[in-house]
């Protein structure tokens, strides 16, 4: 296997008509990587004002068949969720991410809603997670995997509900990437970062778009308007766990 490695690298160098990259060039290339400069950001994603960002996020998310409910505070989440499930004629059952940000959600106000916390099981029909950021540019949710946020919650159940707080809405993907780096030690990304834009879909049969190919058929976003509703528990919590 290392033989193949040497062959391939040697082949690259030979084709490019040179030997290995010299020390100076390597230093420059490393610097380029370490700086990870942003390339051009579209004007649409340079909406600076928070209200504008939030409105853009909602509009773009709805365009791709996500549904959005705007609620005043975390305390309103159980009612919003119960209402949504009932409207969609879905059972009042939910698997909720073991995310500290969601600990403060008062599920007790909706006792008929059956909640369990953890990763998704095959039989779970609906899940609820928080997210890492919400990207206004294309109505995209950014979720990280972790002990508080098993990835299976995003893909296995038919219905995925995501709680987004207002101050998590950023303008461009690069803003989300900045957050990602800020919340994780260098070289310690989570196993997976999911960018989710609307529910699962396919157009593989006669170009007909059908929702719910393998992933969730429904993506419902509960946007919590109250700022600092779930103040960075995840952020500090994650950071605290990582070796510095």
């Amino acid at each position, binding site marked *: *296997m*290392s033989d*193949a490695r040497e*062959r*391939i*690298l040697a*082949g*690259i*160098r030979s*084709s*490019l008509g040179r030997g290995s990259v010299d020390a100076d*060039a*390597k230093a420059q290339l490393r610097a*380029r*990587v370490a700086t*990870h*400069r942003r*390339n*051009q950001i*579209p*004007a649409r994603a340079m909406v600076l004002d928070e209200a504008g960002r939030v409105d853009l996020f909602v509009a*773009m998310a709805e365009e*791709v068949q996500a549904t959005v409910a705007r609620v005043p505070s975390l305390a309103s989440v159980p009612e919003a969720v119960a209402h949504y499930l009932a409207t969609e004629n879905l059972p009042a059952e939910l698997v909720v991410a073991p995310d500290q940000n969601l600990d403060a959600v008062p599920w007790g106000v909706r006792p008929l809603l059956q909640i369990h916390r*953890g*990763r998704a099981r*095959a039989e779970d029909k609906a899940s609820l997670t928080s997210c890492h950021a919400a990207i206004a540019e294309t*109505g*995209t949710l950014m979720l990280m995997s972790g*002990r508080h946020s*098993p*990835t*299976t919650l995003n*893909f296995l159940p038919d219905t995925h509900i995501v709680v987004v707080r207002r101050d998590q809405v950023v303008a461009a*993907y*690069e803003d989300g*990437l900045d957050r990602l780096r800020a919340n994780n030690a260098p*070289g310690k*990304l*989570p*196993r*997976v*970062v999911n*960018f*989710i*834009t*609307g*529910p*699962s879909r*396919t*157009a*593989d*049969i*006669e*170009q007909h778009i*059908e929702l*719910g*190919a*393998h*992933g969730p058929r429904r993506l419902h976003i509960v946007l919590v308007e109250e700022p600092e509703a779930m103040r960075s528990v995840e952020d500090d919590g994650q950071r605290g*766990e990582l070796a510095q």
Partner: protein
Amino acid sequence: MLAASRDFMANARAGLANENLQRALGRARTGFPLRRHLAVERLPEFEELREAGRSIKDHTLEYLDFYLEHYESNVVASGGKVHWAGTPAEACAAVLQVCRSVGAKVVTKGKSMVAEEVGLNDFLDANGINPVETDLGEYIIQLRHEPPSHIIAPAIHLVKEQVADTFRAEHRSLDPDRSLVEPRQMCDEARAVLRPRFLAADVGITGANFLVAETGSSIIVTNEGNGDLTQTLPRVHIVMASIEKVVPTLEDAATLLRLLARSATGQEFSSYTTISTGPRRPGDLDGPEQYHVVLLDNGRSALLGGDFQDMLRCIRCAACMNHCPVYSAVGGHAYGWVYPGPMGAVLTPSLIGVEQAGHLPNASTFCGRCESVCPVKIPLPKMMRHWREREYARKLSPPVYRTGLALWAWVARRPALYHALTGLASRVLGWAGGYRGRFRSLPLANGWTKARDMPAPEGRTFHRLWTERSR
């Protein structure tokens, strides 16, 4: 995958005569360009992004060895393993070795053109492991034992009745009287049939749209979510990617991602864009325990520094084939291998040789539509021309064309003779065709007159008339 590119002419004719295919292509021919057009209109910076994308790729290719090594070190640092494969055999062997090491019985697969290229499915089958395709289009063609006909919509050549027939034939445990008329029903059926396979899989194999050197990550772009289920549920995740997929940073990937979905399907962003870095972390509740990357060369390193380097910029969006009138006429199977359309016309001879694949760069009018929509500005017609130059130099084109061309060129370099001959031709043809103004048939011009009339010349050449007028 075994190449049938030599049979392009016969396959193309078969494609033209295939009514189901023509119906399917008719739909795609207008759908894809319109959707891309709308997405591009909506993003004023699209042209600048194309330039940025081109620049990122060019830079990376210039230092590909550095970036691959940097990438590898970060894969290892995050707990993954890289298997370098110079050839298809090495790639298949690496995958098999990993599967065997965990006693894999069920293997699920996301869509991977690299896996097609190395013939992974057949190889694994021959070794007692039956991989299950999970992308809906790939699943359908797997059941039908057909190769993909498009790099992002593998079953684009089928009409829904064909899909229904296939599902009825293959999903034998289901009620034979069930209704399977609408795509919705077929989609639900595939979802239900594949879900247990996802859950039972020991190993999940995906491709990668990008590999990120900065973090050692792989990025997949899907709409179905099958790639995510494929990589998250099993104990082992294997990524198959070719060496030119690497980009320097996450920000570079973001720029290319802005180009990809818009160019491919006209979406602003695909439903799922996933950045994967290594196996599960301590404390994670799900995710694979092992993360492997099989890095394939298979002739790509040889393209660097030469006439075809720019082909390595390709981000596999399929915009070129979606806009190609030749692809839209004959379909992807005519090209005979993994990569159809204009990008296939350039890449296929590069990877399997122009002796086998010579038809592909010849079956083009150089209309240039492909290049005009390529998100990373690959000069596709120019590279197809380079293939023609190589064929010409090696005398691979049919003698009748070579002789005809040589003769014509010899005359064209002698204006007086040329004018005399064309004067004669104009007179003769003008006279013969003058009554009707056109020919229904013309000796030596069968290729033309089989399907069209040939308008008759006016009877005198311009040069002759100009000379007469000047007297």
